[in-house]
């Protein structure tokens, strides 16, 4: 089918396509079904299938525009090609897309995709487990709107970029309904994003993906920003500073402990994070943040007693 569609300067109707492909089902419904399957297959493979109105009873015609089908020459020199090969070999995405891409780029024979032993490997989350990812990438690339379901609600966004931090992929985008920049965790997107036409996305003038991005769970709330100070003991100080960045540190004590300041919009998420430090972390203030931690702990002390050994 691909060959037929590439070869035609005029869009072909479904009937014409079926006539040119030996073995295509002749029954109307079976033909339509086979065609829908093939169409989806081609689109999944990145083949730009154009749908154009044609005259006559069939109304719609299909063709593939060769200028969009073929890869433009990237002009990679051998050194650059080798660097890309190494990247694909050293970064695990859980599927062979990277290797497929390289073979399209013409990485043939001689440079086997063998990772170097002393090169650190990077495991990114499996693309299989994040089906939304490639659609979002396409949306960003085409400056197209994306519509998807997130935390049980539909969202329509103008995507600005994809970002990986702390083990998770995020989409930074302008949320049309909320009329502001938002960060979405890709693994919480529960539907396959539908991507609008190329160029349909319109980011507001001066939209800054950097300031719209936040991977910190305590910043996902909608409330006012509260500055919370957390004291972290030496055993966890290094890790926490690496996680938050040195800019968050407001005080370094001689013991090795640090005080970090966090901008919090979701107090519940902050409490959860602080409790993950066990007794190596303590909210110093403001009082309402301390009270939120103490409140949660008191509930849990009670809950622990209540359920202990119950049978």
């Amino acid at each position, binding site marked *: 089918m691909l060959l037929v569609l590439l070869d035609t300067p005029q869009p072909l109707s479904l009937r014409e396509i079926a006539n040119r492909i030996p073995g295509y089902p002749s029954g109307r419904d079976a033909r339509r079904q086979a065609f829908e399957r093939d169409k989806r297959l081609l689109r999944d493979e990145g083949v730009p299938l154009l749908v154009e109105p044609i005259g006559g009873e069939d109304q719609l015609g299909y063709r593939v525009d060769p200028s969009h089908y073929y890869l433009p020459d990237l002009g990679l*020199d051998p050194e650059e090609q080798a660097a890309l090969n190494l990247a694909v070999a050293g970064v695990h995405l859980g599927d062979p897309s990277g290797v497929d891409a390289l073979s399209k780029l013409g990485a043939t024979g001689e440079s086997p995709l063998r990772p170097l032993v002393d090169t650190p490997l990077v495991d990114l989350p499996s693309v299989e487990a994040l089906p939304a990812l490639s659609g979002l990438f396409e949306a960003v*690339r085409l400056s197209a709107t994306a519509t998807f379901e997130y935390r049980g609600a539909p969202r329509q966004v103008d995507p600005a970029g994809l970002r990986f931090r702390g083990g998770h992929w995020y989409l930074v985008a302008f949320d049309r309904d909320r009329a502001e920049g938002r960060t979405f965790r890709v693994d919480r997107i529960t539907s396959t994003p539908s991507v609008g036409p190329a160029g349909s996305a319109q980011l507001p003038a001066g939209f800054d993906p950097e300031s719209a991005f936040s991977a910190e769970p305590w910043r996902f709330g909608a409330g006012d920003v509260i500055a919370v100070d957390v004291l972290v003991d030496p055993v966890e100080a290094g890790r926490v500073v690496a996680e938050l960045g040195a800019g968050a540190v407001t005080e370094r004590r001689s013991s090795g402990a640090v005080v970090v300041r966090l901008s919090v919009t979701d107090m519940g998420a902050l409490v959860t994070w602080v409790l993950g430090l066990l007794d190596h972390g303590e909210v110093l203030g403001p009082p309402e943040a301390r009270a939120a931690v103490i409140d949660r*702990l008191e509930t849990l002390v009670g809950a*622990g007693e209540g359920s202990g050994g119950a049978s």
Partner: protein
Amino acid sequence: MTTVARDVGTRLRRLLAILTWLAQVGETPIEVAAARFGLEPDALVAELEMAACCGLPPYTPDQLMEIVVTDTTVSAHLGEMLARPRRLSAREGFALAASGRALLAVPGSDENGALSRALAKLDRALGGESMVIELDDPSMLGVVRRALETGNQLQIEYYSASSDEVSSRRIDPLRLFAGDGHWYVDAHCYKAGDERRFRVDRIQAAEILDDVASGPREAAEGAEYEPFVPGPDIRTVRLALDPSVAWVVESIPAVTPPEQTGDRIEVDVAVGGDAWLKRLLLRLGTAARVVGPPEAASLLGDAAGQILDRYRRSQPG
């Protein structure tokens, strides 16, 4: 239906890759071509024969593709239309951009700048400028890499999150990798007398020793990444989870499939240390309950009490 479509997609993609490659390299021994694409020779021949006898429009077969299979070799000649490389699918474009950027995020991975240049060319043609990949950069990463490069032993101070203790260990680093958003080093640990996985951001101090790493190293190659490697002191704890936190099952080392009991989900979890379980329970709060064993049921209350003590002691005046 979806599964079938994906299988067909995989085959189509592979077939096009094989044909494009064959057209470029010319006549090739069957074994060589099969090995390159990870196929048995018979399977390769079967794929090519299938391609040769179907899917061709009746009016221009010769111009489009000619496949020749002899007893020992295969070759393909493609019309101009198929010989030119195809555009990348969204998934392939994503894979290239992500792989390149992930490696670029590894400190010191692109000293001659070739990877950056390659990515810039990719971006111009395919988009992808707006993808950002950050890997964490723990302070001890550099010293661990140096030890791995020189093959020397390391003396480390390590905070174990599962036991909530700091210990001194002498290790032979075997493999360094980033996964799950963190850097890990697999090493032979002389204290444990076995291989252990250490999170680099939990190494509080590290010193390169003069001794050359000499422990067993067979596990260094081919070890697959798994965020959780069961140690010897594993015990099983059964949790009952509220459906609102059912997602946690995906990110904890469950040893049995979750079971629905009433309005709760019960799951057996492999626990490497009390501190790990305390963190999990504190995080889940009242949405999780320990079913058993009984000694684990008191952990949450104890942990909460211990932290509460800290707050009471330090009550600001």
